[in-house]
């Protein structure tokens, strides 16, 4: 799973969000590292919807602006948790070693 896809799914963990809501939330979750442009966001949304990881929840028009909300599916939630566990395990290989290095100066 690509990093933008991971953060988009993570942004939808709590509540359904519309396009701009997802852009703001992914920026917030990644400490500003991921700034999604609209073309990238909608390409990812289309792909993730096709894979059944999220779906369009509802649509509303506010002050002439169409907002479609997206929500995570059960499959999307499983995929996200699986990916998080995989990254955690991958990170542990390194962090465990750095932890050892921190306690044992000979390994540094």
């Amino acid at each position: 799973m690509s990093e933008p896809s991971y953060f988009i799914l993570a942004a939808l963990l709590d509540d359904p969000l519309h396009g701009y809501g997802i852009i703001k939330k992914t920026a917030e979750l990644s400490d500003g590292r991921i700034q999604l442009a609209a073309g990238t966001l909608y390409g990812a949304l289309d792909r993730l919807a096709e894979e059944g990881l999220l779906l369009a929840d509802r649509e509303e028009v506010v002050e002439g602006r169409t907002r479609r909300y997206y929500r995570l599916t059960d499959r999307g939630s499983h995929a996200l948790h699986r990916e998080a566990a995989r990254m955690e395990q991958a990170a542990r290989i390194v962090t465990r070693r750095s932890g050892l290095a921190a306690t044992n100066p000979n390994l540094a």
Partner: protein
Amino acid sequence: MNGRLRRRYERLLFTYPSAYRAAHGAEIISTLLDAVRPDQQLPSPRETTSLLLGGLRMRARQAAKESPSRMWTDGLHLGVLLIVLVNLGHALEMLFPLWIALVAVGALAVLRGWTRTALAATAVAGLAVARPLLPQVALPWWLPGYGDWSAVARYAVPAVVLAVLAWPRVGRLHARSWWWLVLPAVAALPLEGDALSFAKAGLEVGLLLVVLVVVVGALDFRPAIAAAVYLAPGLLYAAESIAAGPPNTLALSYWVVLAALMVGLAAAAWRIRREQLTQ
């Protein structure tokens, strides 16, 4: 302010497939407008690039879902359409009403995807154009007199391709937009001279470059097939001119550029299809 910026963003959605634009265009524009600065007048370079590439990628994903036979059918159809529309433009310049009607029927049939009618009309036109080259046959009163094989090729190439497309196992052709009729209208403009030839050559090279970008960006090789079909009669014309005498350097370089672009397109199309098949 937002009205103008909205229209500018809407125009940037042109690279997206029309069905996707109809379903998601309003939503994407809203998201873009939500993200603008209060004093912003122009689409940001970052959003512009993202939209142009996003549209091409969306087309690529759709193209990858099409079957190879559908891609070939669409590409060949588009190539034939380009030739017959330019033929119609040239026919309109002549004062032979029956000839214009025959070419127009062929062009219209190609545009609407009526393969058999298109084949019949284009084949008859091709035979008619070939007649002056057969000295034993008198030229009928309703035909213009063409005296070279490249003119015959402009009808023979589409007729051969249409014969392939008329094969029962080939899928039906999609009807194309009426906007294509702008092409013969432009081709028939009563302009003459070197400046126009340069403009036409520049336009062709420019369009081929656009096709190359689309083929590489959208991983869609249909425009490459169409360009190859469209250029086939022209390359025959170049061969005929070279055979007739020492070629004009400018004309020769023009054909070398076109041929090089075609080779580039073919290479790009080949790579794309191989990648799609191994995915």
